[in-house]
Structures are given as structure tokens and as C-alpha cells.
């Protein structure tokens, strides 16, 4: 972990103005931002840990908790909103039993809502691990969750 942080910081030549991109890269490498990693960033950049905690909690893209195997991001831009994204968000929350921004206890699903993704023609949009699913509706979202749940189970069996 410490080496990962070191490598990432080296890419930015230890420039602390890149704190946000550095944290993004650390999160990408480790799936979330573990406390130890943040202390390592703090020590290596000589930025107080209180400042780092402030930045991590300020920006929505950062997570202090591990993310699920399937990361669902539902676009909540205006175009998606007027096409009923809120009803879909309600459906996903109901099915997974978690609130927006949380991860299921079995670490299968993380569900977050995001600002406009800029693919408004396809709204409402659900992104699953980076893959876009356009023209989303309640029934389609139910189906996707079922499929992912099944896929997760088979993948586990194969492991």
C-alpha cells in the first residue's frame, strides 16, 4: 500500500497542488481510500491529515469505505430527472436495501447518484462499472440488478 502511494505521488513529482488527482489515483488503485493510505499521503506530501480528511470528505468522488463489486451510478442530471430518474433511484434503493451513497453489506453493490454525465439523449442513464445503460426505466433496472446478482453468484462459484 505504502509503495502504491509512493509511486503515485512520484508521478506528480510530490507536488501537493495535485492532492485531488493523487487521491483519485490512490482510490483507483486500492478501490477506496483506506485510512493508512491517507496517513501515507499526509506524511509524503507534508500535508496535515486534517486537511486531507477535509478534502476527501468534501469531494463526492472519494470513498472512505470499500466499494462493492458492482458500482452503480445513476445520473441525476436535469434531463434524467425530468424523465423519471428519481423513480428509478427509489427502485434500486428498495431492491438493494441501501441508501444512495452506500454499499451492500455483502460488498456486492455500491449505489451512488451522480451529477450530469452529459449523455442526456440516453437519459435516464445507469452506469455499471463504467458501462453505460441508456433509456433506463424501473423494469430495466430491476432486470439489470437481477442479472448482476446472478453473475456475482456464478463468478464466486467459479473462484
Amino acid at each position: 500500500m505504502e509503495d502504491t502511494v509512493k509511486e503515485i505521488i512520484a508521478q506528480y513529482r510530490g507536488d501537493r497542488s495535485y492532492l485531488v488527482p493523487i487521491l483519485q489515483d490512490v482510490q483507483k488503485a486500492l478501490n477506496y481510500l483506506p485510512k493508512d493510505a491517507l496517513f501515507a499521503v499526509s506524511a509524503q506530501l507534508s500535508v496535515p491529515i486534517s486537511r486531507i480528511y477535509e478534502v476527501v470528505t468534501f469531494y463526492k468522488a472519494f470513498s472512505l469505505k470499500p466499494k462493492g463489486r458492482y458500482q452503480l451510478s445513476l445520473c441525476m442530471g436535469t434531463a434524467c430527472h425530468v424523465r423519471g430518474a428519481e423513480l428509478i433511484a427509489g427502485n434500486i434503493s428498495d431492491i438493494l436495501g441501501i441508501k444512495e451513497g452506500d454499499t451492500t453489506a455483502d460488498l456486492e453493490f455500491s449505489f451512488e447518484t451522480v451529477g450530469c454525465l452529459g449523455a442526456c439523449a440516453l437519459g435516464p442513464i445507469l452506469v455499471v462499472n463504467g458501462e453505460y445503460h441508456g433509456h433506463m426505466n424501473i423494469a430495466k433496472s430491476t432486470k439489470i440488478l437481477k442479472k448482476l446478482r446472478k453473475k456475482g453468484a456464478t463468478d464466486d462459484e467459479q473462484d
Partner: protein
Amino acid sequence: MINLTIDNKKIEAEAGQTILEVARENGIVIPTLCSNESLEPSGACRLCVVEIKHGKRTRVVTSCLYTVAEGLTVDTKSERVMAVRRLVLQLLLARCPESVQLQEMAQEMGIGPEPRFTPDSDHSKCILCRMCVRTCEKVVGVSAIGFSYRGTEKNVCTPFQEDSVNCIGCGACAYVCPSGHIEMEATETGDQRKIWGRTFKMQACKVCGRYFAPEDQLAYISATTGVPAADLAVCVSCR
């Protein structure tokens, strides 16, 4: 010298001074909740807003940040100003219904709570004036506390809401807190102090025996100033 008018009173000021500074020097009261002489202004509380007229343009500005200019006309109690102050206090009263300091201030200004705002119960007495965080960073220099999250979720805390490794227990944050939110407790004998959930051992004065400062704070001062720790183990009155 700069000539300006505040509340119809002709005033001379020095270039670079803020409206708030000039008003205070001239006995004009502008209420504030986040201003402290030893800190740079932050403009967070918005109580100190005033209405200015410069040429034809009228606008509401923050007096703690706005610097004076030649020919400026300032109204510290205009209708627009009072509307902002009233809202700010009503919002803070609803956020921190238990803060006696806020209640007193509202009473002085003749402002009552807005019945449509349901009082909060989750912020205790913190109005997010930021003075504690700024003091800890800029005056003390340890940055033990900071903000977390944003918007309505924002609060002041130690990193990860855990015992801060950096805190030296100096209590400066509690001292500057205007709403009585930050609590600092001492044991009866004074040999220990508790703040931000952490207990600090106090140093007894080598001369009079009185407990006068946390050991961690003295160690920090010794480390940053180079004064030997032994020399700091004597309280101010005995030095």
C-alpha cells in the same frame, strides 16, 4: 487618507482598512460571529453585511472583507442589511437552539425565531464560524482539527472523528469558540484536561506546583522554538 461616509457620518480611514475595522474605530457597531483580531477575516457568518453605494451602484457586501474606497457611502442598518441579518440569526437559532450566546444576540437585535424552521438537534452549538479551525492552523500551527464533508453535512472534527494525533490540548479552539460548542473539561485537581475526546496530562509548575499547561503543548513549544523542555516547566507567573 480615504474619505467615506458610514451611517451619514463622515469618516477618514487608511487605505487597505476594511469597513468593519473603520466602523469599529469610530464607535459604529456591526455585529459579527466569525471575526477575531488575530485571524484573517473569512466572511462565513454574513452577519457583518452592510449596504454600500459607490457611484450609482448599490450593493450588499461583507464589511469584514471589503476595503474602504474614496467616496464610499456605507449604510450599516439598511432594510436589505437587516433582512440578511435577521435571516442569518433565525437560521442559526434554528441550527443551534441551545446556544445561549445566540439567543442573547438575537434578543438584543429584536429578532425572534422563525416558526417555520424546525429546530435542529444534531449540531449541538456549532455555528461553523470556523474560528477554531483557523486558530488551530494559523495561530497554533498544528491543524489538529478541520472540517469534514460539505454543505449541511459540514462539521468541525478531528480526522476520522478519532483522537487526533496532532492535538496538543492547548484549548485555543475552545477559547475562541463564540457559541460555547467546544467543551474542555479539567479534573478537580487540574492534573488532567479533556478536549476533543482525548485526555491530556498537565504539567505542574516546578515552582508553585500549579497545573498550568498540557505536557504535549509544552513539548510542542519546545520542539518548535528550541527552548529546552525543562525551561518550560515553570508557569508564567513564576518565570
